[in-house]
């Protein structure tokens, strides 16, 4: 906690409130860009090999639907990619309660009450997996975030976590371990 003066009043005052939708969206874009440039870069060659070449969308789709081997390859590669994306978010949120994109906007992940566990951090990002029923969260999460009072995603409600923004009365933003629950 911040230092207290002789009157018992804290030098700095801050509180954690729900993170804004726009900031969260922009933070997500930044994270995806970082993921695309780093973690997913090795998969570009293999994606180029297995995905159909030039042609209209209908032609590519018809080629994929007519080729079970190609479907299997796409599933394997997309599952591998989604696991790495999930690990990016899960590991960083577990260790630091934030990701580069979130940190840029001073957003953090907090657990309801207890210390954030790895399972909670991973559960928040399960919608990346192209496996039923997890990919359904990709539709449910943003819808819930739009209509929920605290801008919480369905995944966050299920994992008892929330993305918060610290509103401080002073300019310094504490990175104190006490802040992490």
């Amino acid at each position, binding site marked *: 906690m911040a230092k207290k003066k002789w009157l018992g009043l804290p030098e700095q005052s801050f509180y954690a409130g729900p993170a804004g939708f726009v900031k969260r969206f922009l933070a997500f874009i930044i994270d995806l860009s*970082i993921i695309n440039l*780093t*973690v*997913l*870069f*090795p*998969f570009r*060659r*293999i994606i180029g*090999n*297995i*995905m*159909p*070449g030039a*042609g209209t969308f209908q*032609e590519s789709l*018809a*080629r994929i*639907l*007519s*080729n*079970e*081997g*190609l479907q*299997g*390859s796409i599933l*394997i*590669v997309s599952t*591998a990619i989604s696991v*790495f994306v999930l*690990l*990016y978010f899960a*590991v*960083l949120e577990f*260790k*630091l309660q*934030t*990701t*580069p994109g979130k*940190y840029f906007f001073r957003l953090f992940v907090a657990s309801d009450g207890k210390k954030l566990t790895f399972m909670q951090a991973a559960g928040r990002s399960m919608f990346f997996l192209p496996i039923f029923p997890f990919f359904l969260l990709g539709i449910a999460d943003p819808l819930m975030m739009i209509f929920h009072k605290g801008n919480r995603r369905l995944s966050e409600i299920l994992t008892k976590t929330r993305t918060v923004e610290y509103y401080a009365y002073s300019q310094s933003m504490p*990175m*104190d371990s006490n802040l992490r629950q």
Partner: protein
Amino acid sequence: MKTDKTAKQEERSPWRTMLWVIAVLTVIAWLVSGSLSFFTDDSRENGNVALIPVKGVILGDGQMLFEQDIASPSEIIGFLEDAAQDPGIEAIVLEINSPGGSAVASEEIANAVKAVNKTTIAWIRDSGTSGAYWIASAADTIVASSMSITGSIGVTASYLQFSGLLKDYNITYEQLYAGKFKEIGSPFRPLGIEERRMFEEQLRELHQEFIRAIAENRKMPADDVEKIATGMFFLGKKAKELGLVDVIGGKGEVRQILEQKLNITVAFVPYEHDASFFDILSRLASSQSFSVGRGIGKSLADTRMSQKLEIRT
């Protein structure tokens, strides 16, 4: 109580930790993507002519043989359907190297070839006889080497009959059945005259069906086909004279025909059975076991000596 230095260190550490995590994940991703290339199929999108193998004895699904090469109708028909629906595939080449096999399986594959609405070429390698020739005849064009063996338009059904051996060893075979011809084809008693006549009648019908299919596919008079449908095989050169083969040549001639007919640059796309890790393991294990029992296995697996009655084209 925290010092400024500690506070600054803590403020820097998130970026360092983030960089470490991203670096480790990237390295692991490189390793995984490299290994994934062994498990993914990336060859088909680069070609425009499907090359579908018909190799080995043509057996119906569920039938087994000690031979390693079996042409499975469900796999071949699956490849044909895939190639037919793939907009990138402009023609289909059946690479045939088979002595024939099951009449039903051969007919199924031939019908699937005829149902394809794209240019089809049957390229006969060493052997394309009997049921394999039935399949080849369904294609638009047949290309064979002058030394390929083809033809053998006939039907055979043979089995070992052990009644003499049982008699020598004073073993009695008790027949219990309901239905006059239920025991027909039993290896433990001689075939009756009426039974033989029935069998041969059915074989004749099959033979006629075979001749009819070849005549229709090759657009030849049925009588002309019947004259050469003695079960005799022909070398490619003779087969061309008889009208069973269109072009003498090999892969180069196949490519030439397609490029002239379709005005394309041919790029073959092999359609192959994707062996899983367990397929590879079981193949290794079975080839080892096969080597050990090779002599016994071969003698037992000779189709002419099979106890089970099977009708083959």
